[in-house]
């Protein structure tokens, strides 16, 4: 089936060439980072995580895209999603590959990465995050590939794949929970020390992943020769709307707790985020952009008249994706370090090489995604049989 990714029109190859170019530039700067050390980035002793870990955190959310299709289709027999569960699974694969790459480029000693397996530490959440992420990657590669192969051969998928699909549902919950626990379990970082960290991760994941899927469906409908169906797209849009609403509610809950309790160490980071603290306001513009984009997108998605028009739906989904990229990325990671444990205000500004490496990893992710979706549309164009094993319970 892989060979299907090698046949495409001119536009397809220009897009592929652009992605390879961006990835190559990123790789070039990664070699420079290997040589010089992580000092090439904007990270510092006080702000010891930056753009890379922010992308990792956000993309774990995008990987949830699969479960929002698999759950309604396989557990509730929601037939409209039958054609596109594979799209969600492939998006999850690309997102998890990006997550792993972002953790990798963030390591000070990448050559020693296998120490995590050679000296496993069950008390470390990072160890468990590696377990759940690699498991989720494997599950989605297997289920996506098997179902697509069967669609191509016009045979029903084998029965052994169904338990794996069911397993993927709790497994998707686990990747967000475990990633949230990396942050929520640290005693000295009051911005992250909140019991709703995992729920916040889940809520925003169920908005950002499906928002990207809607955009993919709209693109494939216009240029890919594949129509996911208006019913499926509208159902996804409703999922995005409610997940975004819950996500914003959770942010509001955090703000209430911090400011009504009035505990300075809980207030400080939110003041830094939205108003600036002690003359430092590096993220204020970003956070207000998040607030405006998210509120606008929520309005467009909640009003049926707007949601049903592509000219409103597409920008709303872009706004959801962009706003959560801010909120679950830099807006979550950076304020954990500002102010520092010794009350120092050290700001963080990513450097050029750091941005180039980040774009390079995104390009690799989109290369994988493009290849998978090319195969998908080629197979779909050839076969006309409905996808997926027949749904089970209701």
């Amino acid at each position, binding site marked *: 089936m892989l060979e299907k990714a090698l046949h495409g029109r001119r536009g397809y190859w220009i897009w592929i060439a652009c992605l390879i170019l961006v990835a190559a530039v990123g790789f070039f700067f990664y070699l420079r980072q290997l040589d010089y050390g992580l000092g090439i980035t904007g990270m510092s*002793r006080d702000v010891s995580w930056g753009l890379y870990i922010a992308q990792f955190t956000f993309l774990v959310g995008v990987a949830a895209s699969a479960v929002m299709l698999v759950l309604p289709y396989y557990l509730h027999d929601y037939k409209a999603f039958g054609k596109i569960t594979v799209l969600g699974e492939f998006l999850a694969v690309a997102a998890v590959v990006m997550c792993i790459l972002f953790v990798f480029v963030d390591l*000070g000693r990448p050559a020693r990465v296998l120490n995590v397996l050679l000296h496993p530490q069950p008390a470390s959440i990072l160890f468990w995050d590696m377990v759940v992420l690699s498991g989720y990657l494997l599950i989605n590669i297997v289920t996506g590939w098997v179902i697509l192969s069967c669609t191509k051969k016009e045979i029903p998928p084998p029965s052994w794949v169904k338990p794996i699909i069911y397993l993927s549902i709790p497994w998707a919950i686990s990747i967000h929970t475990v990633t949230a626990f990396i942050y929520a379990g640290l005693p000295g970082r009051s911005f992250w020390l909140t019991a709703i960290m995992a729920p916040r991760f889940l809520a925003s994941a169920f908005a950002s992943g499906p928002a990207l899927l809607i955009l993919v469906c709209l693109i494939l409908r216009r240029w890919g020769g594949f129509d996911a169906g208006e019913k499926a797209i509208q159902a996804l849009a409703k999922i995005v709307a409610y997940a975004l609403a819950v996500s914003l509610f959770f942010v509001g809950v955090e703000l209430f707790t911090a400011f009504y309790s009035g505990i300075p160490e809980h207030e400080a980071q939110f003041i830094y985020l939205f108003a600036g603290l002690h003359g430092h306001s590096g993220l204020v513009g970003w956070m207000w952009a998040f607030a405006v984009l998210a509120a606008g997108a929520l309005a467009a998605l909640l009003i049926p008249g707007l949601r049903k028009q592509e000219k409103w739906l597409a920008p709303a989904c872009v706004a959801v994706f962009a706003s959560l990229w801010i909120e679950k990325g830099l807006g979550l990671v950076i304020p954990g370090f500002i102010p520092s444990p010794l009350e120092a205000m050290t700001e963080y500004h990513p450097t050029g090489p750091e941005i180039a490496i980040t774009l390079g990893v995104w390009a690799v992710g989109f290369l994988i995604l493009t290849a998978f979706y090319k195969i998908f549309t080629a197979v779909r164009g050839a076969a006309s049989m409905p996808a997926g094993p027949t749904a089970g319970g209701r």
Partner: protein
Amino acid sequence: MTTKRRDFLKIAGASALTLLAPSLFGPAWAEDAIVIPPGRASGPTPALSARRWAMAIDASRCKEGCTDCITACHAVHNVPDFSNPKDEVKWIWNEPFSSVFPAEDHPHQGKAIQNLRIPVLCNHCDNPPCVRVCPTGATFSRPDGIVMMDYHRCIGCRLCMAACPYGARSMNFRNPRPFIAKINPDFPTRAKGVVEKCNFCEERLAKGMIPACVLACKEKAIVFGDMEDPRSEIRLLMETRFSLRRRAHLGTAPQIYYIL
């Protein structure tokens, strides 16, 4: 039977140490000049051991502008000087009261307290978050309480830096070797990409020497000893003086005790 014998040996060992300790500590403090003894001791000195190493710092004794403990520590441990806060590596340094004890600070604090420069370092916690989160076991606790780093196992993920509530850890964002003024051949230098911090001078304790910062302090502001030994100097100090620990409410059980 066996348990009783083991207990007896433990008590005997601990008692022997308390008898030995004054003779080891005494002469070192009596020296006037800051001389950090070389790693190769003249005779075979027994290693210093304890059930729980801890440190007390009387910051009110610190002289204005004095950096003797910092200089001594950083020289002995090949700590680089990058001269910029971004790449900075530090094991012990000083901070104002308001930064070290933000919860205890208030606007009407006397000048004497406000102007203090308090030495801060790794707290060698009894319940260290950095050890808990490390995905490779590169950071670990020794039975005597020292929180240690294995520079050859660390993958540089910096989760320990996020976990430490004291900002005690430094990352080698660049190759540190060109930035070490004079390399001490008795202690390893680090490579770029690993995290490091104070090690309570475990390499000196193993050779029977007290930590470099303790030795370097002319004001005798730093006391180092076995917290589990009721006759140790640090325990006697705890009996008589009021002490504070940094962010003790977090449950990390820090083992640096501040007397102000």
